[in-house]
Each structure stands twice: as structure tokens, then as C-alpha cells.
């Protein structure tokens, strides 16, 4: 088994799993359908192509920098007729950073890694207007599990954010993982893609468990260290 690791960071991101009609909400973390859609696009798949092989990947995301939810009140007119479009409310996460991982068999993961480095369609963070600010591909990790990768990956939050937590040598980050059997407190989210076909998008329910992982803070103040106190005065 290998794990593909992605860094999702940008000025704006938007990951709707239940957004419909004029109110386009965003979840607090990337959705599985959003990230799989990004991977399928990188591979150059058509929207009508079957995403079931991707849907089988075990998916998890870690919240490295929470970001702020902001609301945009959007009015638009058709450029040709001047006719007003429905007024819509759009929500975004500003300044958020996530690490996402997809675990699957070596061949598929290797293929996706290559696709991410030379994407057929450029990746975006949930909505076409949200470009990533750092390279999305963090590479693949071989012979490991999704949990181990999310635990081991260093903290990718911005430096100013890490410095703001300088009193914490270790920070606990939320992880949202595909639920496994035996997990307690499983939430259901409808973001497991069955079809990305624009004429009939379909999503199935997915069980999600939340876990905290502790990662070291590289910008933490070091503990006090006084070697002289160990010596007997001379």
C-alpha cells in the first residue's frame, strides 16, 4: 500500500459537500469528492468517466491551519442579455492549510502522483476561482498507512501561524478519516462520488471519524536549558 500526500493551501478554498442552489457553503475541511475530483482532473479524465476506482481509495485530511470562514454575496448578470442571475451566497475558507492523503495500491497511487506533477487540468481548491498557493503534490509514501503518514507529516501551517503557537511545543491537529470498522462516533457526509457527470452528479454517504494527532511545532520556544545549574559552584 502507498499513500499519496497532497498539500491544499491557498488564499481561498471552498469544499462544499451539501451545497445546493443559491447558498454555496463550505465544509471545515476538504471533501473526499473535491480531492478525488482534483485527482481525476489531473489525470485528464472526463467528468462522465467512472470515478469508482478513485472512490475506493482510503481518504483522510489533516487540518494544519484552520483558516477563517468568509462569506461572499454574489450578484451576476448574463453578459449577453444583461439578465440578472440568482443572487447567491458563497462561503470560503480564507488562509487555510490542509494535508490530505489517499491510500491505495501502489500502481494507482503512482499514476496519480505522476498525474499531479503534470496535470492535464490544473488543480484548484474546491472551486475554479480558488488556485493553490503552493505545489499540491507532496509526493507519495510507500509501505505505510494513511494514519502513519498524517501523524508523521510535518506541520505545514504558515510560519506566522506556527509562531503564534510558540508556547506549544506540540500542537494537536484534527484529522478527518474514512471510518473503518469498529470506529465509534462516526459522522456521515454525502461526498463519496458515484458520478461527476454534470447532468446527474451523484454522491453516496461516507462515514468519517475525527481524530487528533500531535505534531511538533518547529517555531516553538525551546525549553529552558541551563547547564550551569548541574555543576557544583567552583
Amino acid at each position, binding site marked *: 500500500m502507498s499513500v499519496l500526500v497532497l498539500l491544499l493551501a491557498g488564499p481561498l478554498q471552498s469544499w462544499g459537500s451539501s451545497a445546493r442552489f443559491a447558498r454555496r457553503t463550505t465544509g471545515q475541511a476538504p471533501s473526499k469528492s473535491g480531492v478525488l475530483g482534483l485527482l481525476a482532473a489531473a489525470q485528464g479524465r472526463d467528468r462522465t468517466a467512472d470515478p469508482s476506482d478513485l472512490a475506493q481509495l482510503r481518504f483522510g485530511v489533516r487540518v494544519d491551519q484552520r483558516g477563517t470562514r468568509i462569506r461572499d454575496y454574489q450578484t451576476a448578470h448574463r453578459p449577453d442579455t444583461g439578465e440578472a442571475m440568482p443572487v447567491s451566497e458563497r462561503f470560503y475558507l480564507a488562509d487555510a492549510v490542509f494535508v490530505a492523503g489517499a491510500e491505495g495500491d501502489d500502481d494507482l497511487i503512482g499514476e496519480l502522483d505522476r498525474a499531479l506533477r503534470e496535470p492535464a487540468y490544473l488543480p484548484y481548491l474546491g472551486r475554479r476561482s480558488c488556485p493553490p498557493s503552493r505545489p499540491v503534490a507532496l509526493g507519495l509514501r510507500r509501505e505505510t498507512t494513511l494514519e502513519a503518514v498524517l*501523524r508523521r507529516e510535518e506541520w505545514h501551517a504558515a510560519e506566522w501561524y506556527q509562531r503564534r503557537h510558540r508556547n506549544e511545543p*506540540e500542537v494537536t491537529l484534527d484529522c478527518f478519516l474514512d471510518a473503518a470498522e469498529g470506529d465509534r462516533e462516526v459522522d456521515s457526509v454525502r461526498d463519496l462520488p458515484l458520478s461527476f457527470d454534470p447532468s446527474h452528479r451523484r454522491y453516496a454517504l461516507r462515514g468519517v471519524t475525527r481524530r487528533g494527532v*500531535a505534531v511538533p511545532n*518547529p517555531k516553538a520556544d*525551546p525549553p529552558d*536549558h*541551563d*547547564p550551569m545549574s548541574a*555543576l557544583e559552584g567552583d
Partner: protein
Amino acid sequence: MYLTRFRLNTARMGARKLLSSPQRMHAAVLAGFPELTSASSGEGRVLWRVDRGAKAKAFLYVVSQERPDYTHLVEQAGWPTLEGGWETSDYTPFLEKLTAGDVWAFRLTANPVHKVRTCDGQEDTKTTPHITQHHQAEWLLQRQEKAGFRVVRKAAGDPHPDGEGERELLVHDQRRLEFRKKRGDKSSVSLSAVTFDGRLEVTDPETLRRTLIHGLGRAKAYGCGLMTLAPSESWSR
């Protein structure tokens, strides 16, 4: 052996000059020993390290065989009107007291590197710094047994069920040092230093004594390799 602590006055130009160049700091540290002919004479060499804490506090630590005189440093980069200026303690009793099983908090600034073959099949290797915290921690863990200590494992109950990140070890303050050896030199020296903080258990007192006196890793002339120990209760997370 002696352990010396010198507090640098970071408001002074002299201190800033020293802090900005490991080459100058090295010269200033050695200038405290009038009898010393080269950096590695006799038993043990002069090791030094700069600890930069919060609030512009910077301490220079020196381990040496002779007792240093840092009057010149006080005049350049210290607080000349304050009494003392630096403190030097006899290190030998402490070193002799080390026993297997002791637990100490430690700090080490080092230059963790590995050798990389630049092309397949090529004989030459290139010395390359470790970049990620994970590899840097691994670098230290690979050397611990040979250096006479073992980094303490975290107590059970910490949220680290598998083999990763379960040691009481903190890797921080990675910095890249780049400087010229002499004024006008075309090529510059470039190295990567990182500071380890953690708790260790003494496994072999004799070897650890050697590590504390002779240093660990490369770039010892440039403020790397000096490990110091402090009471383990001071290590809090």
C-alpha cells in the same frame, strides 16, 4: 575541563558581528586561550555553541581544557561595567559523576549531514544536509548508542501508538549559515545547523564523557557539536 557561559550583549555592534559570523565567533572563542596553538591540541578541543533564547538573550557556551579569559569578549560584546561578565565552572567533577541510568535534559546544536551519490555508479559522494525534522531526528538517534546515551522514550499514554515521534526529543531552530572564511574569498562556507532538545539516559558514562568533551558530528569549529546537560526536571513540555 571547564564549562563557560558568556552572555552576549546583543545591543552592541561587536556582539552582532560575532553572532553573524561563525568564523569570527570561532576566532573570538579561541582568543580566550593564550596558550592554545590550534583548535584541536592535546586532549579534547574547544567546543562552543550559541543559545539564542527569547527576548534577545544570547548565551555563548564553551567547553575547554583550559580556563579561558574572555576579557576581550566582554569589552567587545558583553557588559563591561557589570561584575564578572562570564562564568566558568570546573566541568571535571560533573563529568566524573555521570553514571549509567542517569536521566538528563540535553541540548545539542549539530550539523546533521549524510553522503549522497550524485550519479548512479559514481564513486564520489557529496555531503548533503538533512532537511526534514524527521531525518534530522533520525540522524541523532542513529548516533546515540555510539555516543553513550539513549534518548528517553515517552511515557505510555502519549498519543503515539507506533514507532514514530515517541521519543522525548525536539528538533528546532534550523538555520543555514553562510559565510566567507576570509575577506575577499570568492567561495563561501555553507552549512546547516539544527538544535536538538530532549531527555537522555546515560548508557555508557565513559563514552558520553567523550561526547561532551569532543563533540558530536561535523562543523565543530562553527558552533556545532557541543552537547550540554541540565537537570532533567527542567525539561518540561
